[in-house]
């Protein structure tokens, strides 16, 4: 913990020194960024924009995780589904995020559905591919046990299959949250009139690095808090049955 703190302090120190060398226009000092954050918070704009971005992140993430996990599970369990969907998956995995976003805006319009849908579609193949690996590694002997004891479908899903997929879902969540929020910023920059991405776009036009950092850093802090206070505790809870090793 103290090592983490020292590392953060070192980062701040380097920032401070670099800003002194580079000049405040290119790289403002931490104090200047903090002042902008304070001003934006007082006007309420900061929370409005952070909230808009966070809502888009959560919506896109939930859709991508739910559909991606279902698709990955079906592909990992059934060879025919796997063969049928695999080419689609490869196309989606290799389609640049920008292409999906622009197409969504052109086809659906400059609205929330297009924005969230485009982000979800970018994350979905990634989740499906990860969960497919998990589904392929499912323990057949436990499946047979569930079959002999005639466990109902819901019981099987919840108590036999999902616990085995938990590490894969956790990996998809980790990489997913960070990927989704980065793409959300691009979506906002290109076609929304609020959110962190929109504010960063405005700051770019004005060459206002202070404002850019003033919006980017609080959002990074929010994502860090989600990881520490939500994702990690859930992970600890679902892996509590594993024997602890020193």
């Amino acid at each position, binding site marked *: 913990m103290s090592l983490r703190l020292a590392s953060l302090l070192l980062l701040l120190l380097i920032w401070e020194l670099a800003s002194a060398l580079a000049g405040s226009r290119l790289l403002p000092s931490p104090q200047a960024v903090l002042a902008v954050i304070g001003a934006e918070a007082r006007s309420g704009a900061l929370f409005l924009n952070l909230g808009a971005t966070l809502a888009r992140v959560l919506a896109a993430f939930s859709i991508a995780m739910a559909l991606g996990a279902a698709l990955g599970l079906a592909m990992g369990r059934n060879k025919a589904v796997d063969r049928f969907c695999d080419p689609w998956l490869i196309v989606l995995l290799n389609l640049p995020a920008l292409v999906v976003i622009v197409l969504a805006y052109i086809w659906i319009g400059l609205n929330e559905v297009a924005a969230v849908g485009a982000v979800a579609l970018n994350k979905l193949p990634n989740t499906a591919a990860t969960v497919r690996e998990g589904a392929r590694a499912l323990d057949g*002997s*436990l499946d*047979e*046990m569930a*079959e*002999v*004891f*005639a*466990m109902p479908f819901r*019981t099987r899903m919840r*108590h*036999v299959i999902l*616990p085995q997929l938990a590490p894969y879902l956790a990996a998809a969540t980790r990489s997913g949250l960070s990927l989704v929020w980065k793409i959300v910023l691009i979506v906002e920059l290109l076609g929304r009139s609020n959110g962190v991405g929109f504010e960063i776009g405005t700051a770019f036009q004005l060459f206002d690095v202070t404002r850019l950092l003033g919006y980017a850093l609080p959002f990074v802090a929010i994502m860090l808090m989600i990881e520490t206070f939500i994702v990690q505790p859930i992970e600890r809870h*679902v892996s509590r*049955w*594993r*024997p602890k090793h020193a």
Partner: protein
Amino acid sequence: MLDVAIARKTLRNASGESRIVLRDVALSLKSGEVGAVLGPSGCGKTTLLRVIAGLDRDFEGNVLLPTPHKIGMVFQEPRLLPWRTVAQNLELAGAVPGAALDEIVAALGLSQHLSHFPGELSLGLARRVAIARAFAISPDLLLLDEPFVSLDAALALRLRAELLALVEARKVTTLLVTHDIDEAIALADRIVILSRHPGSTVADRVIETPRRAMTPPRAEKAKAEIEALIAGAAG
């Protein structure tokens, strides 16, 4: 209660060759009867149990079971859900909490372990949980696949006695697969002997002496007879 007539069962190995594992296997059990399938390693005993349990439907022949039926199975490995506690493992399989379940749990010495995860149990304890799970659903048919293999002799003997007490108390029709002649004699009313690969029924023998009246000399005599039957099948 249970009528099995398998004309042929083939299995395909990883390189795609198929081989016959069971041929002309017939056995039947009356309600409440305990049967043992005895045979050398690799003669298809486990395949036979899987066919009866409905896990493998790709065979020529018939398996007749009353419908509807509940099957309790003890696999060679415990096959517990490692992420659920012992109590949850029992309940998820269909055990109803109550006096009957408490009795089974107590009989198998598991009362102290209900809140433990399977990873915290020794193999012997995990085996007992698997046995408790099979009993706890009050099955119509109990299938046991070498349930005491790789346990030390003393523990196997104790678990065998506990199993026997449960079978006697509940009058469950039971089919046990084993390669251990003593185990088959100690537990079964009826012994079916399978030949070496591919397994086929070579003898179906009813043990006249009830299990409780079994004495060492009588067991010795039964063992000698069965060994003679096995030798006859091999020769």
